[in-house]
């Protein structure tokens, strides 16, 4: 008799949510009893603009398989313009990751307002599914590409 090791893939997903919109959106999803996978770990940040591109890289380095950034819709930022800056930064970062050969699906930005519990839950479900299809993140552990 042998015991087969379970090798089922459980993704680790980090979601950076802005305090004013997306975190409240996640709250609404919870209180409306809309489900989203437990693989998503939410980190609350004061504003999407607080997310230094290095946060995303660090999440990957620590073993995340996907990272999603949620913030207020452009124009609705609590601090007026934070998410506009975040948008430029993330676009450049994602483009760079793509350039290095990291799958595009692992990173995502989604604008979720406090009233969009439904959207939050749908986005997370969709994102987790995508990460399931991509499998484990092996490339971003070490960008110097050493083993």
């Amino acid at each position, binding site marked *: 008799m042998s015991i087969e090791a379970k090798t089922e893939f459980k993704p680790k997903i980090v979601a950076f949510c802005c305090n004013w919109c997306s975190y409240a959106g996640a709250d609404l999803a919870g209180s409306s009893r809309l489900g989203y996978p437990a693989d998503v770990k939410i980190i609350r940040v004061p504003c999407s603009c607080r997310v230094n591109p290095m946060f995303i890289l*660090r999440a990957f*380095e620590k073993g995340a398989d996907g990272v999603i950034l949620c913030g207020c819709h*452009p124009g609705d930022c609590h601090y007026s313009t934070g998410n506009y800056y975040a948008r*430029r*930064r993330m676009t450049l970062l994602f483009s*760079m990751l793509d350039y290095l050969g990291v799958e595009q699906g692992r*990173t995502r930005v989604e604008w979720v307002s406090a009233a969009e519990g439904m959207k939050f839950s749908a986005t997370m479900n969709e994102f987790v599914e995508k990460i399931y299809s991509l499998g484990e993140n092996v490339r971003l552990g070490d960008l110097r590409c050493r083993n």
Partner: protein
Amino acid sequence: MQELVNHAKELLTSGSVARVLGWKTGDLPYNPEPAYFDSAEALEEFVYNGFCGANLSKYMIEASKLEGKTLIFLKPCDTYSFNQLLKEHRIDRDKAWIVGVGCHGKLDAEQIRCQGIKGIEAVTEAGAQLQIQTFYGDRTIDYSSALLERCHVCKGKEHQIYDELIGESEETNDEERFSQVAGIEQLNPEEKFAFFQKELSKCIRCNACRNVCPACSCRKCVFDSNKFDSAQKANVDSFEEKMFHIIRAFHVAGRCTDCGECSRVCPQGIPLHLFNRKFIKDIDELYGEFKAGEDAEAKGPLTDFTFDDAEPGIVAERG
């Protein structure tokens, strides 16, 4: 070159500048090094030749803290870095007397070695030719065949900022600036990753690219350890260590003038400019053409925004 020395001597002796920032002969014929000269006698060591690729703008940060004016020699492409530093308030314009020097493209000793030339004793520039004396006899090669990578994508012969100009410049642009980047973009993810794996695994983390970069001028750097004394220079922790290249490139995104110093100094020959140039290409495509250092006023692309910027999802759409 003699013209530069004479002019520098003149300004030094008249007292209008306190020191000269230039290049002096190194220990090998092909590695002149940046140097300060504070007397007319010291200027005997001054050299300006095809190997003076070093961008002196960054030395102006320290020179700005010193008493009196500094005469600084800048090539056309160095003036972009100078402007960028000026914009970031890292250097003092009033402390600098900029002499724009002519440039016909700078040489890369590695390119000479690539042509099978070993044991270089002396290099003489003769127009479009390069006469090289070696232990094994004399060789003559084309000047253009030994240019630095950055000179093939020369930014132009115009100095962006100067007090006076000495010498003629010539554009050496003979390649499409973004062709290398575009070539990599065409590859599939596996090929891209394999390419960067091959290049980046050569890195020995010597920090030369950071130290030479005119855009990397923070007093405290994320790559320095916060430990005491000599341990300060050690790498901070595994994260900064592993993600070094992308962090470095991101920290200078929107401020990088594409001066190519990082690739020039890399002892392992890693094409670091490919990272910086990718950011420049993206910025140009998505937010309108932007040349860092073209003037000392314009807002940088990452400290600015418009209401209808592209969404990050565009990366996937572009394919």
